[in-house]
């Protein structure tokens, strides 16, 4: 059925290339064309903070031929930005005026940084909303002679950028509007240990503050004026306020957009031959059923893999993902956050546990039948096991004490 189809993929990052590899694996004779607006060959985007610190070179973070991205025979066209989609004649138009015809299309155009409109001066030289390798190279160069950077936003990207800058001996001030850092990933009480570790590592953190104006000097940015009028000199500014799906080029098409491109569980849009995956796609939370858009590499790669199989005629349902899910290690502390991590005073059964260098918060549904959220700091043993039981909505009553006592292993689920 899918033989000799022409596959076109918009976007050459996690979702796009996962799909391309899956198509070639499923149908070795397939003709797959991937269009990328970037001039750099595909790379592992989450690695770009290491370009700033100098710990990795662009060659180190190249994607093709690495990890699962081993497929050959994919026609990759760089510097090719898609500006419109015509779903009736099955073609996309590029910025240079070319048209590309497809039998099956994957929209994997990703997301772009959100730049708050109420901050003045975001276009000044030395202000970064870190997204691309090209920007990271530029930031690496500027950081070599910089003394102080102000990072707006207290999320993971800025924390990673902060440590890259500290490596380069640049002082860092994190300006966070929320009451505490990592507010998307956890509640303020969950972040105490991480904040202490960050401050101990030399980060200056201001919470409950936002930037009003970025001030231009002779060599780009020279200061940031905060909402309380305080003026802080700096040579670099990083805006880390999350991302938004790249859907502008679809405005004139009949694609259903709800923040991102709406797809069914088989990653298919309202058009039978058009699919979407990754940051640009609207997916669903397996626990709440709510629509979610995420900006996570891991989700994009997994969803792209499903999309590629579906496009090549191997129907594969995507299991959805939690709106909140991430892991990393900062300042020597590993942590994982997933699912309903903001129970607030809602109807949940919440267990918090502090022991030594570890903190854990477990969120169970009201009747105690399901694990719905989890924050682990310091010790992330078996995090994936919890993700599995959350995603599959396993009835955990039989093993609940083991979850709370942190003695659950996969052996209990397989043979218990």
């Amino acid at each position: 059925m899918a033989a000799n189809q022409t596959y076109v993929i918009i976007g050459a990052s996690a979702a796009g290339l996962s799909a391309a590899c899956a198509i070639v694996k499923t149908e070795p004779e397939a003709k797959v064309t991937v269009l990328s607006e970037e001039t750099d060959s595909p790379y592992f985007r989450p690695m770009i903070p290491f370009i700033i610190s100098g710990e990795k070179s662009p060659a180190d973070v190249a994607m093709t031929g690495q990890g699962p991205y081993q497929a050959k025979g994919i026609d990759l066209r760089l510097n090719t930005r898609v500006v419109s989609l015509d779903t009736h004649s099955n073609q996309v138009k590029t910025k240079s005026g070319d048209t590309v015809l497809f039998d099956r299309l994957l929209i994997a155009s990703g997301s772009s940084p959100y730049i708050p409109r109420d901050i003045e001066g975001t276009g000044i030289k030395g202000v970064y909303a870190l997204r691309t390798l090209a920007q990271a190279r530029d930031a690496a160069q500027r950081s070599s002679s910089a003394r102080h950077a102000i990072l707006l936003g207290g999320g993971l990207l800025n924390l990673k950028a902060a440590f890259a800058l500290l490596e380069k001996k640049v002082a860092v001030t994190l300006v966070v509007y929320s009451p505490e850092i990592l507010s998307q990933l956890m509640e303020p009480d969950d972040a105490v240990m991480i904040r202490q570790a960050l401050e101990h590592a030399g980060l200056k953190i201001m919470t409950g503050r936002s930037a009003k104006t970025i001030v231009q000097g002779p060599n780009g940015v020279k200061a940031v004026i905060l909402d309380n009028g305080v003026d802080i000199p700096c040579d670099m500014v990083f805006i880390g306020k999350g991302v938004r799906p790249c859907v502008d080029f679809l405005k004139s098409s009949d694609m259903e957009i709800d923040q991102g491109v709406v797809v069914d569980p088989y990653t298919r849009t309202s058009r039978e031959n058009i699919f979407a995956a990754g940051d640009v796609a609207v997916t669903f939370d397996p626990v709440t059923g709510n629509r979610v858009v995420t900006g996570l590499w891991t989700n994009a790669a997994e969803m792209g893999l499903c999309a590629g199989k579906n496009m090549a005629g191997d129907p594969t349902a995507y299991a959805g993902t939690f709106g909140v899910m991430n892991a990393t290690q900062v300042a020597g502390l590993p942590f994982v956050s997933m699912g309903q991590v903001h129970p607030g005073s809602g109807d949940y059964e919440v267990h918090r546990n502090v022991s030594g260098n570890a903190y854990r918060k477990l969120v169970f549904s009201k009747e105690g039948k399901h694990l719905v959220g989890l924050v682990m700091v310091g010790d992330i043993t078996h995090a994936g096991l919890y993700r599995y039981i959350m995603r599959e909505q396993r009835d955990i009553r039989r093993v609940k004490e083991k979850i709370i006592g942190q003695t659950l292993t996969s052996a209990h689920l397989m043979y218990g």
Partner: protein
Amino acid sequence: MDQIKEIFVRKDLCMGCHSCELACAVAHSASKNIYEAMGEHPMPKSRVYVETVSASVPVPILCRHCEDAPCMHACIAGAIHRTADQAVVTDADKCIGCWTCVMVCPYGVIGRHLEARKAYRCDRCQDRDQPACVSACPTKALVYQTVTDFSKDLRRKAAEELSRGEGR
């Protein structure tokens, strides 16, 4: 295509002696010698875990080298790939210790050297003919076979038990 060998667990034969864990840690040490391995830094770690379901039921758990390995697709550094003989392995040089693999592994079998920021896991002992855990198991609870041979053995044993039960 030749079938590849995998490590299978005969749960009924495991007596929980933890020999596999010791052998695994030594096989993944710099010295490959138990006495020297104990003094190495970071301390060599086992990639097989003998867990207990209840007080008396030990179960060795190890990497399944999953078909659509979630860890491999989740890795943000391209540090995890599948070898020609189908083992899913982590390249320590590329690993940055972001623990995304740990977050998605449903078996909980990816270990962490926190200080070095390197993930580690079963690599089916790429440099040995037989994985160290299998060689070390005194009861043959761990076996290294192809799927076909393993299931054939299980069928034969089941048939023997059945015929014994019928008094022949």
